[in-house]
């Protein structure tokens, strides 16, 4: 169970970081795309 808790916490942190990255990437790409379109 201690190992499970450790893996859960690692996965929780990675999932949060991944969510943040996906959001940033999408928004920055939208902006760059708009710039190119102009």
């Amino acid at each position, binding site marked *: 169970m*201690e*190992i499970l*808790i*450790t893996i859960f916490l*690692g996965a929780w*942190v990675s999932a949060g970081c991944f*969510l*943040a990255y996906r959001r940033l990437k999408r928004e920055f790409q939208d902006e760059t795309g708009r710039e190119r379109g102009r």
Partner: protein
Amino acid sequence: MNIYFGGMCISMAAYILIGIFISRKIHNAEDYYVAGRRAPVLLIAGSLIASYTSTGMFMGDAAQAYAGSFTSMLLLGTMQTIGYILGAVLFGRYLRRMKVMTIPEYFGKRFCSVKMKYLAAITAVVTMTVYLLSVMQGIGTLMSTVTGVSYALCITLALIVFAVLTILSGSRGVLITDTMMAALFTGALVIGAIIVAVKAGGWNSAIAQVTHDPATSKIFSWGGQPGSLYMSGLANVGYGLVYGIVWMSVCMVGPWQTSRYLMAKDEHTAIRSAYPAAIGVFFLELLCFMMSIFVHCFKPELESNSHVLIWASMNLLPKILGVIVLTGVLAAGISSATTFLSLIGASVSNDLAGERLKKRWNPIRLGQIVMAIVSIIVLLLSIFNPPSIFWIMFMGGAIVASSWMPVALASVLSRRLTKQGAFCGMLTGFLICFILKLYQGISGAELPVYLDPSLMGIIFNIIVMAIVSSFTKVTPEEDAVHDMMFVMPEAEKDPAKVKKTLAISKWSFLMGAFVIVILLVLWVIPYLRAL
């Protein structure tokens, strides 16, 4: 005067001198309330860590870990760290684009509603006053235990220091002293934890000793020591999960955290500073829990569990290091107190004060008067209230999570949220959490973990927000503001900055692997070997 009191007095005198020095560089309200909006990553990250880390952690969390709730506190301490990153990305940078001085002002602008601003300001002032009170009590308990000087005199002395520092230097001074204090207590805690572990025969040996003692054998197990929070291991884990989510919400949208993003030089600075803050808080919490539990190797029972790190500093560390650790704990308390006091001043003078008051005094003077009055009220409340740091502190965090978090996130992510929905949701979350917490406090009743006031507040906030929004309409003004929030300022589009921020964000998933390795090496493997 003993050596510990001497160290504390020297450090407090230094903070006041720094405050006086920085006050000369304050030229306008932006300098005073949002540090001129040009703070770098180091100051934002340092202040994020310092404003989270207070006597609540060094005394409240440490006491819980010593009592046996290691896994619950570890779940809470690790889960919450992601709140910094999600808060900066999903809320903080949009907040910056509104060019506001305070978070309540953001809510008012976002929903084109003065009522919304008032409600957010009132919840912010209540929460931060409660939190300030808990920090004051922590500082008073720390100083009087260490020095033997009366509790009332100690908190008066500490209050004079942080009130003078905050009133003189505003948020610019708070950012600089916060970062200095964060460096001080981080260094002190790292060295302190290592020395206590070495004195117990080494890190692994300390874990083995605690595990082999029948009285503490369950502390490092997944369910924790029965009775430290709940009798069942599952309930203890449930507590950690619930409060992990609650405190993640606090780190995402809490005014003492998100206000830092308003002070950052740009959006990239706000985002990048969230990563070191998340790692820093995780590390500090883990070391704080471990050092507290290792004290069992030397002192199986203490008169008051919240004195565990004070006892360790005075009895296990070399004198000079003990002085540094205790000065660091005091710094953690003062740094949080300066943050809360400056935010209360900003909220009252910027969001709640009437036009007549605003005309009579300039924004800086008005904020200074408010801070002075709040300091006196908090001093009186602290003197007449018994110390119960842990639970009072949790009330502050719980209210922010239940009243602000759903509305703050939906204000960015949803186009359908109306001003009425946001207002009713925030009010419901606040009232449910506040009333249930008050009921618990007065009656002493213990609610099951799944009926926790903050969790109930969050759930009802979301339900009410959704129902009321479905019966009301978003006005064209609200729609326009929402659209405006998604227009990235030209200055933020610099390709080099975008590339760097994306690279940091891309590789940040490794933080999860880092957490796993650290916990395996410092907790799981030594514990399983000791069984």
